[in-house]
């Protein structure tokens, strides 16, 4: 059975078929399960101490050396250079929420200097970022929606080679690219795939995935990396091994062997859930829509959980009229720093909850008002072969137009 999660386009795609276009062409391959693919490289300059051991003057010298090299390499149409020492904590956190810099880079560990920290961001798509003086002198990162590890690896290799044309890397034949932490030494490559695994969570099979991943030298973590919770059932799977296997083998393992089986596993679990109670799944998804269309106060956690349910609903073809890219955008836009950046000032937690609820009401309301074809309003999942009983009241909330005069994120009438 095609659950619909395998894409409105798709009939009969095997659960493990990652060529499957997913549910939205703008969300990349296998986007019903894969949120994004990311790669990062750890690199250091020869002749400079690693950032944790370097005094302020040496960290500055690294920036002075790298800035013209990074900007001159023309890695994107335009590059934005952000000197993190002169930015507000709020701005830095918004970059963390976008996954352009690490939490560590934004805040530093206790007692660590912020000195000489910077990031270069590729514009206009903001998919390439280069952190300067994080744990290593250079952390190059490329990120793309959907399942596209080859794509990000190709992009990062290009950036790496361009920078190496002008910079001498710390490299040894024995240990490879030398990194401050020996857990990154060798290739310095960390491949990560962000997966949405709600069905495996519900069916309690996630532990199996975690154990299998561990045996294969991979880690499964929450969406914002080390030590973060997997709110909304978003999990990041990354390689731990960086030495003893080449970049090509690491990529092969993740791209052709491991991630496709996790995708297939999640899809199979979703099919079972749908078979076991389609109405219940539909109800869950639409309740989440209803809540976000009407709530007046929302915590980040609740918003993420509801958006996760909606994401699953869209992937299963239960919520026609909403698209995955909007959900991804809202997942980031509802994070605390983004809410405050949109309003343009620091807010208390209560104010943030109010602004978040307003933002989600307005964005989801707009999406339903403008994008939903009326025919699909009546019969969600009409492409499905299975006949549906008449539409129940669970669909009604979406017919509501957005409330007039709802405060948006930028109009400041939330306090």
């Amino acid at each position, binding site marked *: 059975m095609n659950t619909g999660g395998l894409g409105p386009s798709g009939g009969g795609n095997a659960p493990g078929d990652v060529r499957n276009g997913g549910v939205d062409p703008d969300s990349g391959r296998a986007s019903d399960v894969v949120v994004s693919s990311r790669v990062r490289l750890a690199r*250091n300059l*020869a*002749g*400079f*101490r*690693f950032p*944790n*051991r370097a005094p302020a003057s040496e960290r500055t010298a690294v920036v002075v050396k790298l800035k013209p090299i990074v900007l001159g390499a023309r890695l994107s149409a335009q590059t934005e250079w952000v000197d993190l020492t002169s930015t507000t904590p709020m701005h830095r956190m918004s970059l963390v929420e976008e996954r352009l810099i690490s939490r560590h880079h934004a805040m530093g560990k206790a007692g660590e200097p912020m000195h000489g920290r910077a990031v270069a961001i590729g514009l206009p798509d903001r998919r390439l970022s280069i952190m300067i003086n994080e*744990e290593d002198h250079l952390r190059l990162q490329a990120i793309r929606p959907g399942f596209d590890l080859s794509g990000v690896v190709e992009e990062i290799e290009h950036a790496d*080679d361009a920078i*190496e*044309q002008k910079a*001498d*890397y*710390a*490299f*040894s*034949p*024995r*240990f*490879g*690219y*030398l990194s*401050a*932490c*020996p*857990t990154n*030494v*060798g*290739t310095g490559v960390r491949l990560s795939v962000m997966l949405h695994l709600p069905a495996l969570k519900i069916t309690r099979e996630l532990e199996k995935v975690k154990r299998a991943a561990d045996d294969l*030298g991979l880690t499964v973590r929450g969406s914002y990396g080390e030590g973060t919770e997997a709110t909304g059932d978003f999990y990041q799977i990354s390689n*731990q*091994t*960086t*030495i*003893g*296997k*080449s*970049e*090509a*083998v690491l990529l*092969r*393992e993740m791209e*052709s*062997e491991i991630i496709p089986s996790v995708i297939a596993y999640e899809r199979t679990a979703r099919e079972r859930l749908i078979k076991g109670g389609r109405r219940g799944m539909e109800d869950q998804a639409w309740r989440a829509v209803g809540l976000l269309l009407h709530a007046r106060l929302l915590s980040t956690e609740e918003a993420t959980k509801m958006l996760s349910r909606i994401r699953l609903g869209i992937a299963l073809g239960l919520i026609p009229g909403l698209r995955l890219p909007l959900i991804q955008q809202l997942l980031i836009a509802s994070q605390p720093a983004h809410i405050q950046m949109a309003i343009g000032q620091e807010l208390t937690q209560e104010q943030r909850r109010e602004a978040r609820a307003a933002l989600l009401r307005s964005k989801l309301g707009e999406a339903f008002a403008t994008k939903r074809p009326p025919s699909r309003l009546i019969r969600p999942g009409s492409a499905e072969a299975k006949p549906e009983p008449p539409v129940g009241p669970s669909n009604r909330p979406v017919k509501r137009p957005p409330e007039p005069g709802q405060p948006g994120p930028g109009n400041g009438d939330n306090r």
Partner: protein
Amino acid sequence: MPNARYEVSLVKCDLCDAEATVHETQIVNGQVRVRRLCERHAAELGLTGVGSEPVSGAGSTVVLSMNKPGTTLRCGSCGLSYAAFRQNGLLGCSNCYEVFEDKLTPLIERAHQGGTHHIGKTPVRMLAAAQGGDVQAVERVLGSARERAERIALLRKQLEDALANEQYERAATLRDELRRSEAEEAGPEGEPA
């Protein structure tokens, strides 16, 4: 490559009766010269202090290590002690990998599923420059002849394992990798090293 080997021993300074805490190995035109100095004399000769770098000059390489008596190994380049590394998990500079090599190897092996030697990318410009240069230049990038042979043997083993496990896509990747390594080994003139 400068190769640093260190033993912790109670040895007197070459210049006085104090305990030698700095062992300097200098290789000049292939001749190895070892000096053992106490902290004071090492400082006077400008060999210690945070920020002292390994010195490379024409025909000479100096490698430093500082061993505080009864305590721990210390990197002569950035001053990081092995104990401090164990505490925060971060090395201080490239030289730390040489100074702490013996102690790091088992840690790296555990953290990386048994991996202890780099296989994969080599800095492109560095490799191109080395291949136009002498044996030493090649060794700085690709390692000694023995290391290179070991790397190729390791790749062959990984390839055999992949074939035995019917992981054909992985085997194809490894075969490409092996060919690349063998081509590097042959060098630009096609001469096996």
